[in-house]
């Protein structure tokens, strides 16, 4: 399952997820993306995530479905924030469950990398003492190289 929400998701257990209740799984892999207080040498005080929600839900669900086909996992779940977030707030959770740990790790990384490159979500960072900015993948937009890092999958797909 893939969800986009405009509510605090800092406490995973408050989300009461079915994926965490399956007695058959032997491994649960968690990735938690949180808001850090610096980026590209600037002091970040908060940020906003904006999304083209209907498309983000479709693209995100397709990524989760791809992971379940591609890796030998039991289930996968991803939830991503929109709205205003403060430092240390959780922006994204990716959870993968499997009978054995390697596939859970690999599937988890596949999901977060693909979400970062494909799902229409944008981030505006608010800085200490500077004007806020929409953040793009700095390495992509300024150096024009192609597919040198895994989360920038948008090149060459126009």
């Amino acid at each position, binding site marked *: 399952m893939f969800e986009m929400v405009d509510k605090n998701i800092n406490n995973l257990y408050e989300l009461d997820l079915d994926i965490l209740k399956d007695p058959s799984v032997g491994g649960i892999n968690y990735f938690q993306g949180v808001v850090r207080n610096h980026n590209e040498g600037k002091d970040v005080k908060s940020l906003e995530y904006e999304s*083209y929600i209907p*498309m983000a839900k479709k693209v995100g669900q397709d990524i989760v479905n791809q992971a379940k086909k591609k890796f030998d996992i039991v289930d996968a779940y991803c939830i991503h924030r929109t709205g205003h977030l403060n430092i240390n707030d959780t*922006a994204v959770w990716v959870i993968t469950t499997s009978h054995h740990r390697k596939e859970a790790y690999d599937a988890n990384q596949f999901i977060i990398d693909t979400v970062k490159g494909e799902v229409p979500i944008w981030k505006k960072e608010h800085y200490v003492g500077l004007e806020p900015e*929409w953040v*793009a993948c700095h390495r992509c*937009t300024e150096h024009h190289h192609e597919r040198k890092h895994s989360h920038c999958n948008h090149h060459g797909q*126009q």
Partner: protein
Amino acid sequence: MKVKVMYFASLRDSASVSHEMIDTELETIDELFESLNNKYSFKIEKKHLRVAINEEYKSFDSKIVNNDTIVFIPPVAGG
């Protein structure tokens, strides 16, 4: 043809609207983008944008179809 164009992130800042209905005789997404870029002077180069038509990524040479919802997608930054 009538199409709906939606703007997000820095493209919305440039256009100063979140969406608009456009009556157009242009044939391709490419032509529509050039026309909108002339109007709004977007701050992102086309080579860094993708386009979504009716919530699916498509190519800039796609033909415009009546009632399409078109979104030019700035580099995404989730996660």
